[in-house]
């Protein structure tokens, strides 16, 4: 590695050089064997690292998603704080009412000029009032426990301002906590579970791939020999390749030949798009487009995604 351009070769294959630098390095590459070899080796390394397959199984992915979504449903320990706060507020109100009642009574008593009977009668009144008012307070203490035991149960319509008084949610937690308990009746679960279903995932994958291939097929090419911007399509393809691999493996395992073979046809096309350089030559794009046309893959994806979606609806 004696050549001064070696580091730039690395940046070149990453598309991180300016146009001037790119031209300069490309010119240099035409004459420097060392840099040519280095570029070839770097690209070969890229292929090896990019082709690394994760051993993730779709079932594991589905489980993880369900777990995360379910955790959010369970999340609010706020349940306890809420009802505890409510109980405390209620009890405080009662105590205040009792005290003010007592004070008012005392005031009226002092202004009264009645007999000793009249003085004696009120004595039990405040005490009974206090007792009466203390009962809800005593009742209120088990209430939070009950709520605490059933944190997933919908709570009694707490109003939003009170919630803030009880506890200021941390950033992000507000989103997780507010709509949860009331918005999650048991019958809402199947709808949440749907995306995690393998067939739904395959249908979604077909749909995404179809959109990508349509976009790839339809964008306008620059004149022959010049570079075309495909970074969006490339990134999408990169994301879809992994899912394609997993879904293909899954389809193979469950013996779904039709889906497996379609995924198998799709995979090299996605790989080709994801391995395109940042600004590929128009011809390279055209070759992939022709393959897409030849295999009629867009129509096949459409048909299969609709079929799968219908099967899922049934």
């Amino acid at each position, binding site marked *: *590695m004696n050549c001064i351009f*070696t*580091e730039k070769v*690395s*940046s070149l294959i*990453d598309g*991180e050089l300016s146009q001037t630098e790119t031209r300069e390095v490309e010119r240099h590459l035409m004459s420097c064997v060392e840099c040519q070899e*280095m570029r070839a*080796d*770097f690209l070969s*390394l*890229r292929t*090896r*690292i*990019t*082709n*690394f*397959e*994760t*051993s*993730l*199984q779709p079932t*594991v*992915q589905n489980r*993880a*998603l369900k*777990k*995360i*979504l379910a*955790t*959010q449903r369970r*999340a609010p320990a706020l349940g306890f704080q809420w009802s505890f706060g409510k109980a405390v507020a209620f009890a405080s109100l009662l105590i205040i009412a009792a005290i003010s009642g007592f004070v008012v009574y005392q005031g009226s008593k002092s202004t009264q000029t009645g007999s000793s009977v009249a003085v004696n009668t009120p004595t039990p009144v405040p005490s009974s009032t206090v007792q009466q008012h203390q009962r809800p307070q005593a009742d209120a203490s088990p209430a939070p426990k009950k709520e605490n035991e059933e944190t997933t149960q919908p709570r009694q319509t707490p109003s939003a301002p009170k919630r803030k008084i009880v506890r200021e949610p*941390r*950033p*992000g*937690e507000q*989103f*997780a906590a507010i*709509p*949860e308990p009331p*918005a999650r009746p048991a019958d*809402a679960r199947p*709808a*949440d579970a749907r*995306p*995690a279903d393998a067939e739904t*995932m395959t249908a*979604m994958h077909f749909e995404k791939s179809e959109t990508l291939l349509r976009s790839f097929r339809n964008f306008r090419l620059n004149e022959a020999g010049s570079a075309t911007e495909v970074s969006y399509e*490339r*990134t999408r393809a*990169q*994301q879809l390749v*992994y*899912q394609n691999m*997993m879904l293909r*493996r899954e389809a*193979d*395992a469950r013996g779904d030949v039709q889906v497996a073979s379609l995924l198998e046809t799709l995979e090299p096309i996605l790989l080709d798009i*994801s391995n395109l350089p940042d600004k590929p030559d128009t011809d390279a794009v055209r070759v992939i487009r022709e393959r897409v046309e030849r295999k009629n893959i867009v129509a096949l994806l459409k048909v299969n995604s609709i079929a799968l979606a219908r099967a899922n609806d049934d």
Partner: protein
Amino acid sequence: MASEDEEFTMLFQDFYPSLCRFLECLLGGRAPLAQDLAQESFLQLHRTAWGTLPDGEARFWLYRVARNMAINEFRKSNTRYRLFDRVVEAMRPRARNPEQEYETQERQTLVLEMLQTLPEDQRTALLLREQEQLSYREIGQVLNISESKVKVDIFRARAALRERWSKRVKTVGASAS
């Protein structure tokens, strides 16, 4: 809420597999641990940061958190490769024919071995570039380092791997002859 869940589901399905792959390579092939950490990263995103991050930031946030978790794992069990991980890996169902499976396994092991020879920061930068197609600026954002450091790290990683690869090829060639 439902649409937010759907959005999250879409993000999860788009990035969970690639995050697992990234972590698997970073952790030297410990697939179950990688999947756990990826799940934990998404869980944290869902609990704390989802909805507060600007558009397009979630992905970087995930990689940053996942990488930090991986570093914690390195500290906890530096070279210990848990037996359980190996057992789970060995029991993993495989759909291909055994020969094909063996070849893939060999190739994957080689890539992992080579990556493990790199320092962690170089390895992470290279993986984010090659597998996740992030630009130098984006990698800098994830790793909280400058673009020029990213550039140097990636170049050094490539140069080191290239050298080791050629040595290995020579060794294999010599032993074959």
